[in-house]
């Protein structure tokens, strides 16, 4: 049940110049998740209630402060989508029974990290999509349980060193394809975004906002603390994630997946990897050529499969 609206954002200067999210939050310097949230909130607007799952961003609203001009409900790690269900249903009931005017209505958004989205919260997310819950779901994906010190999660990429994969080969598993898992539910909209590509992000959030039903967003969130790099590199690393093809920017609408950024010439993945301490063992004390080749081959085969 998707309907596209006219595109408001053509170039960078079309992006909102006033920012809604307050400053002085306890997020780390250079937080890629907060960068994405800033950009998303500017477009969603203050008539939004965020239902939050346990993660770094739970610390945004600590009594008696909040950076949000709109509303907030902290639920629990596993069940933020169910919280969104309760809020959305209650608002609909109040509207239907005329106990609240339409001006009082709110956009319901879930805000969750990858730890909840890829794992514990997946059942509740699946349930929300299957009920076609009218909400926006935002996962800031920093590829590990960041708030507890970056242990690996189901979102951690192959070979990354985390607090629970410190061996020479790093994390033995592979990043779960949450985009495809979500898309298999056939919700109204699924998209990947990254704060370092604000125009692409803005267009997608605007598109999502113009639709009804479950609109699912994964924002890759470069994480200086968890990925071990200088906070000033967050934007560069974010751009490299896209330019190397490691983080494909894409969307799912009406049964089709469209890539919104296709690189004619992809930069080698090691340009992205070598900036991050979590991959340093692939370069020092000696280059791990087989592992670097494996990671490159996986990226290449992804793009070959999508015909780019």
């Amino acid at each position, binding site marked *: 049940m998707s309907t596209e609206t006219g595109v408001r954002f053509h170039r960078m200067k079309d992006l909102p110049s006033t920012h809604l999210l307050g400053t002085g939050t306890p997020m780390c310097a250079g937080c890629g998740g907060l960068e994405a949230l800033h950009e998303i909130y500017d477009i969603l607007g*203050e*008539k939004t*209630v965020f*239902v939050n799952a346990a993660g770094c961003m*739970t*610390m945004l*609203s*600590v*009594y008696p402060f*909040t950076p*949000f*001009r*709109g*509303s*907030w*409900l*902290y*639920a*629990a790690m*596993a*069940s933020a*989508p*169910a*919280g*969104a*269900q*309760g*809020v959305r*249903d*209650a*608002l*609909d*009931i*109040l509207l239907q*029974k005329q*106990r*609240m005017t339409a*001006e*009082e*209505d*709110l956009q319901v958004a879930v805000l969750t990290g990858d730890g909840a989205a890829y794992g514990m919260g997946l*059942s*509740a997310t*699946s*349930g929300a999509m*299957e*009920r076609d819950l009218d909400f926006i779901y935002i996962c800031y994906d920093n590829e590990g349980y960041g708030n507890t010190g970056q242990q690996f999660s189901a979102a951690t990429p192959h070979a990354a060193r985390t607090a629970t994969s410190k061996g020479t080969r790093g994390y033995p598993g592979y990043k779960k394809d949450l985009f495809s898992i979500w898309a298999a539910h056939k919700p109204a909209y699924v998209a990947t975004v990254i704060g370092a590509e604000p125009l692409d992000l803005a267009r997608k959030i605007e598109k999502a906002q113009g639709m009804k039903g479950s609109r699912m967003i994964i924002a890759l969130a470069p994480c200086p603390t968890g990925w071990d790099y200088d906070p000033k590199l967050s934007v560069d690393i974010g751009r490299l994630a896209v330019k190397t093809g490691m983080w494909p920017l894409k969307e799912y609408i009406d049964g089709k997946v469209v890539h919104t950024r296709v690189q004619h010439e992809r930069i080698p993945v090691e340009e992205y990897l070598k900036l991050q301490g979590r991959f340093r063992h692939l370069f020092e004390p000696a280059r791990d050529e087989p592992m670097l080749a494996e990671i490159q081959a996986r990226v290449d085969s992804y793009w070959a499969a999508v015909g780019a």
Partner: protein
Amino acid sequence: MTRVLITGNGAAAWGARLAGVDYVPAFPITPQTEIIETLAAWIDHGELDGRMVTLESEHSMVTAAGAAAATGVRVFTATSSQGLLYAMEMLYTVAGWRAPFVMVNVSRGLSAPITLEPDHNDILAARDSGFLQIHCATCQEVLDSMLIAYRLAEHERVRLPVIVNLDGFYLSFTREPVEIPDAETVAGFVGAFDAENTRFRASAPASQAVAVLGGSPYSYFRYEMHMAAQNALAVYDEVAGQFAETFGRRHDALDAYRCDDAEYLFVMMGSFATKARAAVDRLREAGWRIGLLRPRLLRPLPVAQLRQTLGGRRAVAVIDQNLATGLGGVLYSEVAGALYGHSGPLPVLASFVGGLSGRDIAAEEFYEMARVIRDAAKAGEAPPPRLLYTRDELREMHKLQAVARVEREELESKP
């Protein structure tokens, strides 16, 4: 007012219907399912102007219930046993939101071993969650307690969710005559839902359930919950009084049966207390001065009323339909805690555990318990706690074990 023959589950559904619930997040579990099936049918046929949503788990169900109540609608939900425990994180959470709504728990023993019939380990696991608890012994009480529960939950001095508990099978599937009050009278009694300041509106942004840093603000908010729960004692009496005036049925926080001149008392919760009640009648006929005290309100615990009722008796048998492994009966500890430090003569307090997963407590067992506490009163010393189990039961159990052994041997002897 009509009198009909309905199950405890049916009575719970009628309670929700008459209270005019807006929203019913649901998830099926035996022996509760009939409640949500009944409500679903009424909603489908336009007899109840509510919305039901089936969530994918009880954890999500209680999250949605709390979130909807925190947004400003009247909510009902129901679960049982494993479902209640699956939702346990959210019980503590939504009570902390101060989201007022009513949940029915249909008691059922907990796994392992997995079982279907009732005891109170499920509901007692939620004892300290912040939900208030009302325990029912009859189908009529289920319906009536639901109406009282909404008043209690939504009261400005309380604002906490309430669980109404009924026993699986013995109440959930047992038909009893129940008076269904007319909708208008109930609407007058329960009133319209007032969200107060617990709501989400575009014109009034609010942050609910935010984090705190450190023990001091945390303690403040938890102490507030505790004091709200304590307020619920007086509010309960007030609401139950109004209920009695309106509907002609009294539901005191402690239901005292033939207690006035009693030297000996049974203390018991839930539908099995009706067995104790019958035993009291038989024992009275045999010349005993004995009664039954049945706590309906477990949270908040009416400590002063317990002291008042139990103080000065010769002996009291607390019969727990639950087992706190490694300790004994939960209710026994609660009663002992209420009595200790009380000036004046204390009864000898004896602990019995029985009725786990619906195991019957026969009349003879009540007579035996009465004899045990009478002897204890004479000796002036509490007897050791007893786990009720008969010789016949043990023999049946040994038969099952013998069958298991034969099956095992046969399996192992195969090449």
